[in-house]
């Protein structure tokens, strides 16, 4: 067992967790009012649910998931475009596993279309996609690029190195900071403080959040993903609320810096520019879509196949409340379809598809009633 692994194991120390929970309760009772903290990352939701963090929080502190799942916010129109290319143009589609199960506007997913003859290849990294395209030069490939700031730089890096001539990329990548800014401006969500995404933040750095913070000051704490990381981040948000002195803080100092991974971000922005982008369930957000610069139009599937950046969404399937779950306005158990017709094996809405979707995480942990969510 290596040194660091041993250190990281201590980030799950139950004894220390109890102490931090105690301090959280002290602070929360001092504040007295109801407090809503939002995180914006599917992996944070997994940590919170898996380790039962909501069970140790006091009655007046609630932590909710915001828009932190790329597959959940992926425009249905882009999924439809991929299906059309795959079935009508006989182009092979490369993508990550989660993406293949998300349904487009006609209720079909790439996996469904596979049954109709679409050639779908699931990959674990962009490098794998490049290797597949290189191995099969007689076929045409489109990589369906889905993900946040964390994912995008590796695609940009490969584009700069040069892709095989039989491969292009549809970029549905999204930039997270403006989405957090969007949530911060929504008065109706009544969010008191934010837990910012640790790995997206590792790449973007904390700096991009400053403009949103200055516009709308509220506690923002960048957090790691171990249970103690999240507990301490909740404590840090509450500490700011209790003193009414707000700032952007960093709990995840072993990975996040103010400037972020400048090389990764610069690589991404050399290939892509940030344009207005559609987030499913939210709408258009200025400066949030990684769109290919004109210089790279040869590898841009939108330019090559005439696929517009989606401007509007057909909405969620009938009865599905994913749009509210995505922005933290509803919890999965408040959706009438949750675990009745919409299950991990038969997902209706996008939040039940992805491993980062709140509904899927709750379903996998057998959370069926609201009372179970809170201790």
């Amino acid at each position, binding site marked *: 067992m290596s040194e660091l692994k041993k250190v990281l194991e201590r980030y799950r120390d139950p004894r220390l967790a109890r102490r*931090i929970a*105690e301090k959280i309760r002290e602070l929360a009772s001092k504040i007295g009012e109801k407090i809503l903290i939002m995180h914006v990352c599917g*992996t944070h939701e997994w940590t919170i649910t898996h380790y039962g963090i909501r069970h140790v929080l006091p009655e007046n502190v609630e932590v909710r998931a915001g828009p932190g799942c790329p597959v959940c916010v992926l425009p249905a129109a882009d999924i439809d475009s991929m299906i059309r290319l795959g079935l009508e143009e006989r182009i092979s589609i490369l993508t990550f596993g989660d993406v293949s199960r998300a349904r487009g506007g006609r209720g079909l997913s790439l996996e469904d279309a596979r049954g109709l003859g679409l050639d779908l290849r699931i990959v674990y990294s962009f*490098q794998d996609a490049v290797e597949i395209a290189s191995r099969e030069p007689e076929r045409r490939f489109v990589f369906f690029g889905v993900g946040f700031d964390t994912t995008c730089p590796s695609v940009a890096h490969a584009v700069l190195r040069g892709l095989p001539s039989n491969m292009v990329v549809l970029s549905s990548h999204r930039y997270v900071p403006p989405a957090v800014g969007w949530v911060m401006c929504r008065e109706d969500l009544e969010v008191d403080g934010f837990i910012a995404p640790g790995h997206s933040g590792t790449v973007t750095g904390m700096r991009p959040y400053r403009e949103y913070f200055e516009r709308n000051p509220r506690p923002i704490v960048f957090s790691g993903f171990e249970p103690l990381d999240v507990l301490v981040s909740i404590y840090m948000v509450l500490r700011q609320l209790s003193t009414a002195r707000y700032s952007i803080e960093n709990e995840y100092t*072993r990975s996040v810096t103010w400037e972020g991974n400048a090389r990764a971000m610069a690589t991404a922005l050399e290939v892509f520019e940030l344009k207005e982008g559609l987030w499913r369930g939210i709408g258009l957000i200025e400066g949030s879509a990684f769109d290919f610069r004109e210089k790279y139009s040869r590898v841009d599937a939108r330019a090559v196949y005439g696929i517009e950046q989606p401007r509007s969404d057909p909405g969620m399937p009938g009865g599905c409340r994913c749009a509210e779950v995505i922005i933290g306005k509803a919890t999965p158990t408040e959706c009438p379809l949750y675990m009745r017709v919409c299950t991990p094996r038969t997902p209706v809405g996008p939040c039940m598809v992805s491993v980062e979707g709140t509904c899927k995480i709750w379903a996998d942990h057998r959370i069926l009633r609201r009372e179970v969510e809170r201790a």
Partner: protein
Amino acid sequence: MCLGYPGKIVEIRGEFAKVDFGGGVVKDNVLISLVDAKVGDYVIVHAGYAIQVLDEEEAERTLELWRELFELEGLRYERAQEGAREV
């Protein structure tokens, strides 16, 4: 999309590294071009590439800080509780 796993670089070949994630999980082709990493470093890997070199010292320091902040106070609290129960 924040899924990321810390692993140790055991070998570097050009732009790629062999990374040991522990528990017998080793990945052979992790792209390390977007970080400054050397053999022995811990990196956070997301979708096949290293997004950051983990600061080991910082990981240790953070834990020590928390122990001082939460645990020592907690021990005092625990003793006070025990004292209260004995009365």
